[in-house]
């Protein structure tokens, strides 16, 4: 697929200077959306004085939290060279199952089993997430099924499970412990923002400075080589799949608190946004490349676009068109800013 005139990089060995320059440019690939964010900021400011208020920006931040957790999860999985489409269903089904196990069978429209005390709702939700990841991992790594289609099947199946359990209803009467994190504020800033920032920081540091984090890059870059270097490829991959689903389940907790109920189509259709944000943020679909910081700029870009479009009063009929256009434009910018061909 290389164009005709390209001399393969490895053969131009003797010339260190231009190689060095190329490396430097590529190193900033994760920053390639920063100019886009700045431009969006300027447009937002020009369009409405309300844009640059802390109210508005914190709002954008909080709205980005749940999506950003899915992006965090998907970024980790993509870096390890895998894909998980089912995250968008996990964000809905995990809370529903947890709440179903916890809520008593009385009164309300939604009847649970009441098997566990209500403070266990969050741990249960996370456990369900982990279980989903483990099952996906089993199908992909043990049965060696195609991961894209396994998780596509899981996407449909889990959404169906959620509809079946909740009977298609939103669940409104939730344990307070479950909704606390998504609805409270700490120091004037929504708790969800603090938590996400922390998780991104933790994830980013692990990827940058811990052996197991670096192992993801090695596995995504060349799984066989990683194995030869002593990395337990299947185990690490499985762990990442589980961690990803767990993060999605936790995103479900925040979502539920944020919007005050578990809706039957919580997360429905998000996976497209998740992929778009991750990839325009510089994470490679082929594994082994990208950072969480880049992925975060991807989410923020998409979220700011929505905000600016609403502030600017874009006619509703053109919203979706612009959404798509923005993805492509951001992709083009991130391609030329990083100077690398994609794929």
């Amino acid at each position, binding site marked *: 697929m290389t164009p005709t005139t390209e001399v393969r990089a490895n053969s131009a060995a003797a010339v260190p200077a231009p190689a060095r320059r190329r490396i430097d440019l590529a190193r900033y690939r994760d920053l390639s959306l920063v100019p886009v964010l700045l431009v969006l900021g300027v447009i937002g400011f020009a369009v*409405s*004085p*309300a844009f640059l*208020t802390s*109210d*508005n920006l914190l*709002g*954008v931040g909080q*709205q980005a939290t*749940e*999506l950003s957790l899915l992006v965090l999860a998907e970024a980790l999985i993509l870096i390890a060279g895998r894909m998980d489409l089912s995250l968008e269903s996990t964000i809905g089904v995990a809370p529903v199952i947890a709440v179903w196990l916890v809520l008593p069978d009385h009164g309300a429209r939604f009847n649970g089993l009441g098997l566990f005390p209500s403070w266990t709702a969050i741990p249960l939700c996370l456990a369900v997430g982990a279980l989903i990841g483990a099952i996906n991992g089993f199908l992909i790594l043990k049965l060696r099924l195609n991961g894209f289609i396994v998780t596509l099947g899981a996407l449909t199946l889990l959404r169906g499970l959620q*509809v079946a359990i909740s*009977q*298609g*209803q*939103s*669940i*409104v009467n939730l344990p307070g412990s479950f909704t606390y994190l998504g*609805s409270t504020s700490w120091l004037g800033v929504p708790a969800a923002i603090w938590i996400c920032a922390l998780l991104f920081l933790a994830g980013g540091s692990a990827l940058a400075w811990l052996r197991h984090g670096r192992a993801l890059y090695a596995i995504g870059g060349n799984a066989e080589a990683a194995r030869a270097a002593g990395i337990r490829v299947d185990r690490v991959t499985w762990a990442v799949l589980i961690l990803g689903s767990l993060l999605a389940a936790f995103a479900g907790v925040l979502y539920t*608190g*944020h*919007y*005050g*109920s*578990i*809706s*039957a*189509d*919580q997360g*429905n*259709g998000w996976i497209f946004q998740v992929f778009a944000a991750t990839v325009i943020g510089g994470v490679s679909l082929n594994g082994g490349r990208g950072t969480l910081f880049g992925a975060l700029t991807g989410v923020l870009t998409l*979220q700011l676009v*929505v*905000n600016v479009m*609403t*502030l*600017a*009063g*874009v*006619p*509703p*009929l053109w*919203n*979706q068109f612009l959404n798509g256009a923005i993805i492509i434009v951001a992709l083009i910018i991130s391609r030329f800013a990083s100077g690398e061909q994609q794929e």
Partner: protein
Amino acid sequence: NRGSDSNTSASGGKPAIGVDLPRADSDFWNSYAQYIKQDGSSQGLNTLPVSNSQNDVTKLVANVQVFQNTGAKAVVMAPQDTGAIASTLDQLSVKKIPVVSVDTRPDKGQVYMVVRADNKAYGAKACEFLGKQLGGKGKVAELQGALSSINGRDRSEAFAACMKEKFPDIQVIELATDWKGDVASAKLQSTLAANPDLGGIYMQAGGVFLQPTLALLQQKGLLKPAGQPGHIAIISNDGIPQEFDAIRKGDIDATVSQPADLYAKYALFYAQAGAEGKTFQPGPTDHGSTIIQLPNGLEDQLPAPLVTKDNVDDKSLWGNNVSK
């Protein structure tokens, strides 16, 4: 909070109203959007730019946030997810911004006024009409919406309850369609193959199901005008002009007109009133409807007339006045 007061004085001092459309890709909601635009300008209201939440409650919440930040004094929304709007409603009520919810009734959280026709009534009306047409026996297929949609669910539940109670000899075949015409067509086709004696069809949304159903029946040679032997009784829901045409031709028998014009008109009316601090009481209104008390607010139950061949040309039906 710096920008929060900036818009109040625009447009002759009228309070700013933020309007969110639930989606832009359906006939019904587009008609609604047109009425909002018309009414907004004809009444000289100060509406903020209309936003579109694309059937996604997270976008709705984001848009409402923008309304708050740009100084809206009242908000009109149509949350298709009646649960997940709860915390937003709480926030708005803290800020004393009245909310008018169109078409759906939020499960939790304060609303100033719900403007809707009663979806349960739609289901019951359809049931009674079909039951009479079929003489109390036979089979009917019900093209349901998405199982996660409150409106669809209300219609299904009311339809089922009414059938069970009043027409126990009618067998109802429920077909979940996810509001998709092609899915509906496929399932209806399978159902027709298994039940050639199907006597009636209830379509929960004419805007989605009408054309695919007519096309299917046409192709199968089952589209006989009302009154002829072998005619399948069809009742639809929405009241869009295409349904009226079909009623006139005798392709379908009836529809329940969900008043897009009144939705828009009274949504803006109540929003304006709310922003000006007016209050309302339960009881009959001056426009032929009743306001009822909800645990979390009031609801103006607009009339949703049943449209048949007899009254299809009635000029007061919104489907007969949509901008051409």
